[in-house]
């Protein structure tokens, strides 16, 4: 190494040190002081349940109890969604996603409560930033892992169908789509967003595997998934059940989802 490079290296070290010291101060000044956090929506509930200390959280939203997921461990207090109760809890910060509880959060802001509104991630790239913001809010120093690499040319990759209730499939330009790409799949659906599937089309041109996500209790919404014709055509193919509610939000569990779908891909490869 020449002298200039050495000098650069020293400068880099110094600036990095200064940055670290600054960050320590700012993190001390920041939101780890929040001790009475209230959440207004499901995604924020899950993030808090993953990253916040139990003592910091005063109440999560009533939607929490609609889904049983394994990254929410134990009992968490919930409020009933009413303005009165939330005010009575005297939160020092109220957390919600940008499309949720609009009226409620505006009322809270008017009444002088601090409300943090998070932009929910639409893609995996913004997921890390979202998690980092949350971590700083609750004063948690967990490291956020990197994402598996995107396979460049996967036109030979097998096709996975993401199937939900009411025969709705998930297409491109969704978070789920990016997840399956990183697990090494191609999306069976080439249309964008969510769309109603055509059963006859699925018979003629079946996917290589299916990952379905639907409530287990009885509903007509499950008729499509349980249709005998679909079962017959998918009999020899790999299938995977993503517990209902998984796809509702993006968060640290998204890494688990990538892992599950990667395992599915390996299972497919063995066949």
């Amino acid at each position, binding site marked *: 190494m020449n002298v200039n490079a050495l000098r650069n290296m020293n400068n880099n070290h110094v600036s990095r040190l200064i940055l670290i010291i600054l960050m320590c101060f700012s993190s001390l000044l920041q939101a780890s002081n929040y001790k009475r956090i209230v959440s207004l929506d499901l995604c924020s509930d899950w993030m808090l349940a993953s990253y916040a200390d139990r003592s910091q959280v005063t109440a999560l939203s009533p939607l929490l109890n609609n889904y049983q997921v394994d990254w929410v461990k134990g009992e968490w207090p919930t409020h009933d969604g009413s303005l009165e109760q939330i005010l009575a809890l005297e939160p020092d910060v109220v957390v919600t996603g940008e499309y949720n509880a609009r009226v409620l959060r505006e009322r809270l802001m008017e009444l002088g409560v601090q409300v943090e509104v998070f932009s929910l991630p639409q893609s995996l790239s913004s997921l890390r930033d979202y998690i980092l913001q949350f971590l700083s809010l609750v004063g948690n120093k967990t490291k956020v892992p990197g994402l598996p690499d995107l396979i460049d040319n996967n036109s030979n990759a097998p096709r996975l169908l993401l199937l939900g209730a009411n025969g709705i499939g998930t297409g491109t330009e969704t978070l789920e789509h990016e997840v399956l790409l990183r697990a090494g799949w191609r999306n069976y659906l080439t249309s964008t967003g969510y769309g109603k599937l055509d059963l006859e089309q699925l018979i003629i041109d079946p996917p290589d595997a299916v990952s379905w996500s639907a409530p287990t209790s009885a*509903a007509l919404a499950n008729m499509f998934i349980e249709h005998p014709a679909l079962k017959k055509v998918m009999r020899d193919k790999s299938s995977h059940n993503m517990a209902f509610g998984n796809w509702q939000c993006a968060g640290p569990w998204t890494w688990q989802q990538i892992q599950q779908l990667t395992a599915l891909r390996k299972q497919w490869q063995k066949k």
Partner: protein
Amino acid sequence: MDLATNSTINSFTETMAEKINITPWLFVVLVLVTWWSLGQGSVPVSVIDGLLDWFSATTSKEALIIAEIRLPRTLLALAVGAALGMSGAALQGLLRNPLAEPGLVGASQGAALGAATVFYFGIFAAAGTLAITVAGLLGAMLALLLMLSLSGTGRPSLVILAGLAISTIAGAALAVVLNFAPNPYAMQELVFWLLGSVSNRGLDSLIILIPALLIGGIIIWTQRPLLAALSLGEQVAASMGMAVNRGSRLVVLGTAILVGASVSVAGNIGFVGLLVPHLLRPFTGYRPDQLLMPSALAGAILVCAADIFVRLLPFGQELKLGVLTSLLGAPLFIWIVIRESKRWP
């Protein structure tokens, strides 16, 4: 002035209609509509190949599409249509009321309530579809008995009022059941129960429906003499040796079976039981006993044709069958009410 000649000219068209024996024609149309329905779908598939493969137990994509997707849908539409058509004719004969039909007297809503409660809360889950069908039957039966005790075979308007009361209560109770059902999608499915659909069903849904159709139909069929005799009133019918009370209960039972089984599988497809007997009456000489079989056939044709139409509509949010039948049936309902108000009391 020969009254006979004058009246002959007036009722010429009516007697012309009567001269045609409608039942064979209905069979022909039924077969055609069935064939057309089997050919409807998004993927071009040869119906004959599919059926042959299925019969010879060959697993092919054609067999799967025809036999597992289109055939159940078609048979379901036919069976439900037949059940609703016949039950409408039976109720009208029993109550001597051209407005009586399962949806208007509250039977369909009662059936939906019974079936939905058992379905969403998984009651008697081991019995599967049978439990749901029986619940639908009980719901329809309760609704009919309640309606009869409220209005009996009184003025037509009274029967419809009682039916309105019962269908409103049943509909509200249904909404409550769906609200508290464990499944988050349940509430949206209210539309299915109230407006009906035959999509996304497999052949297994017919295992209970077809026998129910046969049993209910046969029970009603045995009461043809009673339905004919009731044209002249209960007293005349009883004086001619008809067991009016027992026979009426059997007609109610048969209707409850037909309506309960249909609604528990396909939801409430309204107005079929009103439309079909009304359109066919001139062809059967207005005799209630002659109306049963043609109503069943025409009901099957109507619902199957409506389902074909639903499938031909641009692919998007699926239009519920009951919307179509209501669009056809509601104007008829209004017309009958107007006509009845002008008639001799």
